[in-house]
C-alpha cells in the first residue's frame, strides 16, 4: 500500500479517484442510477443529498462493500474492481462509517490498528509498539483518553474519534467520511476539521458526507449533489451557495419555518417535580403545556436521554414525582406511559425505534396493537391504511408498506418511527434527537411538523444537541448540565451565550469530556 501511495504525485488532470456511470439496485429500489464522481488529490469533495439519495450506497460501492451493477471505478486512471473491503483498502480507499464499527471489548489501540496490529517474532502482538504508535495518533487528534482502555467505556463522541484515528494509521489516498460529526461535540468537530485539513495538505483526497450545510461550506472544495440516486451536478464550493445546492438536492426551495407564535398557554399536561436517579440526574423540575414545545438542550452525556426515558417508564425514578393532567402517576413501563398518552421517539432508531426485520406497517402498529385488534384478530387492512396515511403525511420513501425497515435509508427509518408514535395519537410527544442524520429538507419538514403538532394541542418535548434546531422549534428551553437543570429560558429571553454558559456549568471552557458512563 505504501509503495502504491508514492505514485500519487501524478499530474492534476488524472483525478485520484473516478466513478463513471455507477448504478446499483436493491429489490424495489434503484439506489444509484448512472452516477459520476471524481476526487482530486488534496481536495475535500462534499457529497450532498437527501436521506436515501444514495450517498452511503455510493460510498459502500467505493469501499468494496457493495458490487455495482454497472459502471466503472478508476483509481489514478486505472480501472479497478473491488471484490471485498480489503481490496479497497489495498488500493488506498478508506471508509469511515456512518455507523460505528468498533469492537467494544478491545482497547482503543487495538481498534485503531484492527487488522494491522504490529507484530513481534511473527506470532505475537507487539504491545509496546502498538500503544506507542496509537498514543501518537491520539495526540494528533487531541484525544485525552488512553490507548489501553476498552472502547466500550468511551462516550459515543470519543468512539467516533477512535474511528477517525484509523484514517491516520496509514496514508490512504482517499478517505471517505460518512456523516462523521453526527455524534461529535463542537470541540471534537474542530479537531476533526484540523485533521481533515492536514490530510488534505498531504495530498489525500477526501469525500465528505454531511447533512450540515455549515460544515460543508466551511470545509469543502467541491460539492456533488445526488438526488433519488441520480447525479445532479458538481459545483465548486466558492461558486455556489446554500440555497442553490439545497434546491438541487430537494428539487425545490426550502420553505423557511413559519414564524413561531407565542403559544396560548394551554392546559398543563405534564409536570415533573424534583425527579432524580442517583448518579444519573437530580432535581429535575419542569412542566409542559398543551400547544407548547419544550426543548431540552445540553452536551452529549448531560443526561437528557435518561430524563426522557424516565418520563416514558423505561427507567424507575428514585426521587420525585410525575403528574399528568395533575394526576400523580407511577410509570412502571412504556406500556404505562403509552396508556397515559405519552410517546417517545427514541434516540437510537435502529436499536430502540424499529424492529428492523419487520415491515414498515407492522412497525407502525406495534405500540397500540390493541387498537387494531377485533376479537383477537388483527385488522390488517386498517393497519395498512394507517401506515399509508403517515407515509403520505411524512413523505416516507419506500416502495410500500411491506418493505422491511432494514432496507430504508436512515432518514426514512426515522420518519417511520415518528409516524409510528403519531399513530398512537399521544397528548405528550417526546422526541430525542429527532433529526440526527436527517437531510435538510426532511429536517425542515420535521421542524414544521413539530410546530404543527404543538399547534394542534400536543405537548411536545424535544431533545437535541443542535443549537439551531433547539432555537428553531422551542417555546421554552431547558438547559441541562451534568444531570442537573441549570436554567430554563423563555423563547424571548434567549441569547446563545447564556445558553452555552448554562449547558457547560456556567462557564464555556468547562466543556470537559463527560466521564465514561458505561459498564
Amino acid at each position, binding site marked *: 500500500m505504501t509503495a502504491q501511495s508514492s505514485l500519487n504525485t501524478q499530474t492534476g488532470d488524472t483525478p485520484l479517484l473516478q466513478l463513471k456511470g455507477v448504478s446499483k439496485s436493491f429489490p424495489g429500489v434503484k439506489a444509484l442510477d448512472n452516477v459520476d464522481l471524481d476526487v482530486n488529490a488534496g481536495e475535500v469533495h462534499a457529497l450532498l443529498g437527501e436521506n436515501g439519495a444514495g450517498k452511503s450506497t455510493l460510498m459502500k460501492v467505493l469501499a468494496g462493500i457493495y458490487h455495482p451493477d454497472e459502471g466503472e471505478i478508476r483509481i489514478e486512471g486505472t480501472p479497478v474492481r473491488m471484490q471485498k473491503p480489503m481490496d479497497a483498502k489495498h488500493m488506498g480507499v478508506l471508509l469511515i462509517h456512518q455507523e460505528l464499527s468498533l469492537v467494544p471489548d478491545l482497547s482503543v489501540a487495538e481498534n485503531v490498528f484492527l487488522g494491522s496490529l504490529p507484530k513481534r517474532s511473527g506470532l505475537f502482538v507487539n504491545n509496546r509498539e502498538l500503544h506507542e504508535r496509537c498514543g501518537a495518533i491520539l495526540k494528533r487528534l487531541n484525544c485525552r483518553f488512553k490507548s489501553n482502555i476498552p472502547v466500550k467505556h468511551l462516550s459515543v463522541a470519543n468512539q467516533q474519534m477512535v474511528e477517525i484515528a484509523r484514517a491516520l494509521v496509514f496514508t490512504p489516498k482517499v478517505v471517505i467520511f460518512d456523516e462523521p460529526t453526527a455524534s461529535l461535540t463542537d470541540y471534537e468537530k474542530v479537531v476533526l476539521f484540523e485533521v481533515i485539513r492536514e490530510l488534505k495538505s498531504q495530498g489525500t483526497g477526501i469525500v465528505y458526507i454531511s447533512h450540515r450545510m455549515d460544515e460543508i461550506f466551511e470545509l469543502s472544495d467541491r460539492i456533488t449533489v445526488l438526488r433519488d440516486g441520480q447525479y445532479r451536478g458538481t459545483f465548486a464550493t466558492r461558486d455556489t451557495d446554500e440555497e442553490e445546492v439545497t434546491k438541487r438536492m430537494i428539487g425545490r426551495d426550502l420553505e423557511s419555518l413559519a414564524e413561531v407564535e407565542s403559544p396560548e398557554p394551554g392546559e398543563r399536561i405534564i409536570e415533573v417535580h424534583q425527579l432524580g436517579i442517583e448518579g444519573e440526574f437530580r432535581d429535575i423540575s419542569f412542566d409542559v403545556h398543551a400547544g407548547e414545545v419544550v426543548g431540552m438542550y445540553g452536551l452529549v452525556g448531560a443526561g437528557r436521554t435518561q430524563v426522557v426515558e424516565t418520563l416514558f417508564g*423505561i427507567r424507575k425514578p428514585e426521587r420525585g414525582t410525575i403528574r399528568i393532567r395533575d394526576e400523580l402517576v407511577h410509570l412502571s413501563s*412504556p*406500556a404505562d406511559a403509552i396508556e397515559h398518552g405519552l410517546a417517545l421517539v427514541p434516540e437510537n432508531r435502529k436499536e430502540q425505534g424499529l424492529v428492523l426485520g419487520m415491515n414498515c406497517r407492522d412497525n407502525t402498529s406495534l405500540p397500540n396493537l390493541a387498537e387494531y385488534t377485533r376479537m383477537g384478530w388483527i385488522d390488517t387492512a386498517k393497519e395498512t391504511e394507517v401506515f399509508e396515511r403517515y407515509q403520505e403525511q411524512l413523505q416516507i420513501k419506500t416502495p410500500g408498506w411491506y418493505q422491511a425497515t432494514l432496507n430504508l435509508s436512515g432518514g426514512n427509518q426515522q420518519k417511520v418511527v415518528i409516524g409510528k408514535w403519531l399513530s398512537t395519537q399521544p397528548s405528550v410527544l417526546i422526541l430525542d434527537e429527532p433529526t440526527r442524520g436527517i437531510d435538510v429538507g426532511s429536517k425542515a419538514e420535521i421542524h414544521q411538523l413539530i410546530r404543527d403538532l404543538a399547534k394542534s394541542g400536543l405537548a411536545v418535548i424535544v431533545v437535541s444537541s443542535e443549537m439551531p434546531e433547539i432555537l428553531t422549534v422551542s417555546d421554552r428551553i431547558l438547559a441541562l448540565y451534568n444531570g442537573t437543570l441549570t436554567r430554563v429560558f423563555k423563547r424571548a429571553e434567549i441569547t446563545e451565550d447564556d445558553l452555552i454558559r448554562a449547558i457547560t456549568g456556567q462557564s464555556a471552557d468547562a466543556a470537559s469530556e463527560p466521564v465514561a458512563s458505561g459498564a
Partner: protein
Amino acid sequence: MKASLPMSNSSTVATDNRKRVLQFLGKHGILLAFLLCMMIFSLTTDRFLSTGNLLTVLMQVSILGTIALGVTFVVIGGNLDLSVGSLLSFATVLVVDLHDKVGPTQAIVLTIVFTLIIGAINGTLVGYLKLNSLIVTLGMLSAIQGITLIYTSGQNVDIQDQENTWFAFFGREAIFGIPVPAIIFIGLAIILQVVLLKTAFGRKVFAIGGNGVAAAFSGIYRNRMVFSTYLLSAFTTACAAIILGSRVMGSQNNVGQGYELQVLAGVILGGTSLLGGSGSIMRTVIGILILGFIQNGLLLLGYPYYAQWLVTWVVIILAVWLDIAAKRGRLLNDF
C-alpha cells in the same frame, strides 16, 4: 489487482436469474425438499406410499411435532428451549403415574398444571431475570430429569388396566382412520399458526424476537411475552406427553431424552431463525415431517437406524444454507 470492465448486460441478466432461482428456492426450498424426499422414497420402496405407512409416520412424528410447535414460538421470540426433552419425560411419567392414582381426567389436568409450573420457571429465569436461555434450559434439562427420578424413585410407571381406560383415546385410537395423535398435532398446528400470524400475541412474539429493546420501547411487555412463550412450549410438551403416555401406557424416566435436539432440528429445518424474529408453524410442521420421513424411509430401505443421522446432517445444512443464500442473493459468503 485485476483490472475490470463494466459488467456487460448479459451477465447482469444471468445474475438476476440466478438470484431469482435462489430466492425461489429459499422460499419454497423446504417444500421442494419435502416432495423430493417423498419421491425418492416412494420410488425406492413400494411400502412407503401406502396409507398405512403415511399414517404411521404421521403418528410417530406427532409427539416430536407437537413439542416443536411450542418451541417454534420460543425460538421466534429469540430464545431456545433445551429442557423440553426432560420435560416430556417428567410429564409422561406424571400422567401415567397419576392415571391409576387419581383417574385419567384429574391426571391430565394435574399434569398440565405441573408442566406449566416448570414452564413458568423457565419463563421467569429467561423472561424476568433475563438469563441466557441456552444455559438456563440446559440447567433445567438436568434438574427436571433429577426431579422426575426423585418423584418415581427411579421406577418405571405403568397403567394397570390398559384395556378399559378412555385415556387410550389420545394415543391409540383413530377418527375416520386418522390416528388421534396426528389429529392433535395437526389441529394444534393450525390453531397456533393462526395465533402466530393473525393475533396481537403472535405479532408481539415476532417483535420481541426481532428486536427486544425496540419492542419494549413500544410498550410491549417483553418479560411477559418471553414468559408466555415458555408456558406455551410447556403446554405443547404436556400435550405430547399425554399422547406418549397413552400410546405406551407406561413410561420410563428418560423417555424424552434427546427429544430436545430433534425438536430443534425440525424447527431449524423449517427455516425458523435461531436469532429470533422470523419463522413459521407451517414450516416447522414440514421440517418435522421431513425428519420423520427420512427416518421411516431409510428404515424401510433396510439401512441401519443411524443412517438417518448422516442424512439429517446433510439435509439440515442444505436447507438452512439455501434459506440464507436466498436472502443474500448469492450462494457463498465472501469474507
